[in-house]
């Protein structure tokens, strides 16, 4: 079947199996390998991406279900000149990543947390990220990173608009 969607600002149409997961579509068809798959039960959140402004676990969405949607992955966050998104920047400053496997999903989920609550407490960050598992950091520096990112203001809770990425 045919699916059309905008991925990181680029419109594309592909022929896919109806059962193809969005996570595999992004990785295998679009070649966007930042989005990782860490489980098969929607538990770990490594595959989290933003679809039409909402964070979703792309292992639990069919590519077909995202037909017509705007999808943003980690690769779509930095500015055209390479300027890091506030959440990306904060993860680096606060050492919020180690092996990096949960990171793409964690960054996208953090953006979702900040979209809902621009100035969360530690507890609110922890609750917001409950569906994203990390084995390396003990979450300590991830929580700090999200709170640091919040200081950047409303952009921390937003993904770039399509035209910005295209530029």
């Amino acid at each position, binding site marked *: 079947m045919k699916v059309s969607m905008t991925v990181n600002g680029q419109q594309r149409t592909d022929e896919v199996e109806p059962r193809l997961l969005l996570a595999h579509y992004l*990785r295998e068809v679009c070649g966007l390998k930042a989005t990782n798959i860490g*489980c*098969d039960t*929607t538990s770990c959140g490594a595959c989290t991406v933003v679809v039409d402004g909402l964070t979703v676990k792309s292992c639990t969405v069919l590519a077909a279900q995202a037909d017509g949607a705007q999808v943003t992955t980690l690769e779509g966050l930095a500015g055209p000149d390479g300027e890091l998104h506030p959440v990306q920047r904060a*993860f680096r400053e606060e050492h919020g*990543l*180690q092996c990096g496997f949960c990171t793409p999903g964690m960054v996208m989920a953090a953006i979702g947390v900040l979209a809902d609550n621009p100035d969360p407490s530690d507890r609110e960050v922890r609750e917001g990220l409950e569906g994203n598992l990390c*084995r390396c950091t*003990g*979450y300590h520096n991830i929580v700090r990173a999200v709170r640091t990112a919040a200081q950047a203001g409303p952009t921390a809770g937003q993904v770039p608009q399509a035209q910005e990425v295209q530029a």
Partner: protein
Amino acid sequence: MSILGTRVVRTEDPLFLTRGATYTDDLVDDRLTGALHATFVRSQVAHGRLLSVDASAAREAPGVVAVFTAEDCTDLAPIPAGLPMVPPAMIRPWLATDAVRFVGDIVAVVLTEERYQGEDAAELVSVDVDPLPAVVTTADSARDEVLLFPEAGTNVMAAFGEPAPEDFFVGCEVVVTQRMVNQRVAPVPLETRAAAAAWGEDGRVTIWCTNQGAQQAKGEIAGWLGLDPARVHLVTPDVGGGFGAKIGADPEYAFVAWLAQQAGRPVRWTESRSENLVGMLHGRGQDQVVTIGGRRDGTIEAYSLVVDQDCGAYPRVGIILPTLTMLMAAATYAFPKVHAQARALATNTTSIGAYRGAGRPEATAAVERSIDLFAAEIGMDPAEVRRKNLVPAFSEPHTTPSGATYDSGEYVAALDKALEAAGYAELRAEQTRRRERGDVRQLGIGLSTYVEITGADTGLGAAESAELEVHPDGTATVLTGTSPHGQGHATAWAMLASDQLGIPVEKITVLHGDTDRIPRGGGTMGSRSLQQGGAAVHQAATELIEVAKQRAAEQLEADPADLQVDLTSAGLSVRGTPGAGITFAQLAEKEPLVVQTRFEAAAPTFPFGAHVAVVEVDVESGKAELQRLVAVDDAGVIVNPLLAEGQRHGGFAQGVAQALLEEVLYDADGNPQTSTLADYPFVSATELPSFELVDMATPTPINPLGAKGIGEAGTIGSTPAVHNAVIDAVAHLGVRHVDMPTTPMRVWRAIQQAQQEGTH
């Protein structure tokens, strides 16, 4: 000012945060074009006679290129245990032949054009098993009534030590004994296992796989397949966590290489999480009996630890874990008499291997629970019992009755720092108030002190290689035999080179994990990397400066003794002659400026610390919540506090998870009950507080950096502190011990039982 000891943010991160790391499953490589996908068919039965494997329907399924069963792999010799003490009858066949021995045992493998086709076809492989009774616990195993390997005549894979002398506790005023479980847990690196292999026209195979040391993985794969090691090129891409479970190679990795040879096409394999939770090594899995005896004034006179190690179905590193537990049995204490003994036992479960701490957390958990049990028995504050029995500060080597020789330690100071930072007296006062009020939410305060062994010689030597080259453009390259998978070696090794050469960190590239470029290496495990691999980089920089001085002396017509490093210019200057000098980059213009070196560690090091955990337990539901974790972790000199703290945080989380939540469970028939992340209670952000870190740094004389290992300490210290805290919270209700994980059900039952016993 030296860059060492400063919080340098990671050079790895910009790529990881914008394009993502490149893990094995992410690889795009011409050599892997047209790769087939391997899907393993695994036993769904824990123990049984394998009657038949019918792959005929699978062979007809869409996209299937080949299906291999045991009869298709007869030219592969069984996988040797690699451990001299293991009976030869316990070796593992590549594919189950006459028996299946755990849920997850491989019975067939399917090669398909596409990944999804493999899952479809694997379901069509018909496996006929005549079930046998499953051996699930160490107690079942030790009875030897059902044998996993009948030819071996026993389920005992290895035995260590002797029983304690009968008079071991004679003369003690108080003797306390307790059976306790250090439960089986799953390492769960977020990246599951993955491998890819491609054979070249030159007869060499390139294997990409996720591991903790390319050189060891290569050696194992070559050995298992009977290949000349020169024909194997192993590459370690970025690795999404290991925690010990990715040490060496797994049989699946070698199998992928063999399959690629059979198929004449490259082959890839990436397991699912549900496959990972039965197929990847598990950790811990000890049943322990502790006995501790001493005087009513708190002096401990004798301590005994007897371990039954669950090894799972086939021999892996789990067999030797109890030897590390035994080595560290004396822990931080000056006990006059220490006894330890262990058996390693086969069960119809996933094999046990190393998991963050690997044998040492089990030793610490045993002794720290014992101290609390003893303190409770004599009615003394557990901090006081510890203080009374800790080894006094030492800077000369201290040898314990268990046979370990500690390099340096200040255990009392570590404990006092932790107690002070936690506000121990006020915590006890608050606990008393809550007890007097009969609050539903009671406070528990748990302590641990620990010492562990890092950088131990695990048979491959306590040494590490490094190559350092400065290029004419002013950049430098470090080749290391360590194998980072989150630890930040690219940053830390660059700092070590930069510190001596003045070349900025961002101009130094650190490479690892390619056996053609780096033939020797010990990998990253056992908290060895900085003290051996980092020390090798430091040594390489020192040696490179000497080479540069000789070369510069000729070019500048100066005495080498008059040359000194000028960090500002990243070169050498002539003492007393302002303006005269040459950069390292310039010295590399005519011929390469490169050194290769190997750092040999004289001995392991022994990091130590003390943790204080504060929990609240709801006595009506049994639910324990960790409120605070205060940690003193002394790993000697710290190169990058940001990275060292990150190691501690991650270790704490895994340690807390073992105390409170995580456990791999099997039913009585050996069926795994925790084989997805929906079932396995992997610790999440909501179950943890932010941690309170206290600094302490006692240098070691063992290496020029003064550094000890920090990778596993957090796990080792945190588990018993939290465990003790949960029990402390309900001790006034008569609870003496609760096994880990201290789930609400367990704690609630312990309260009910204690109260019933109290009323009779």
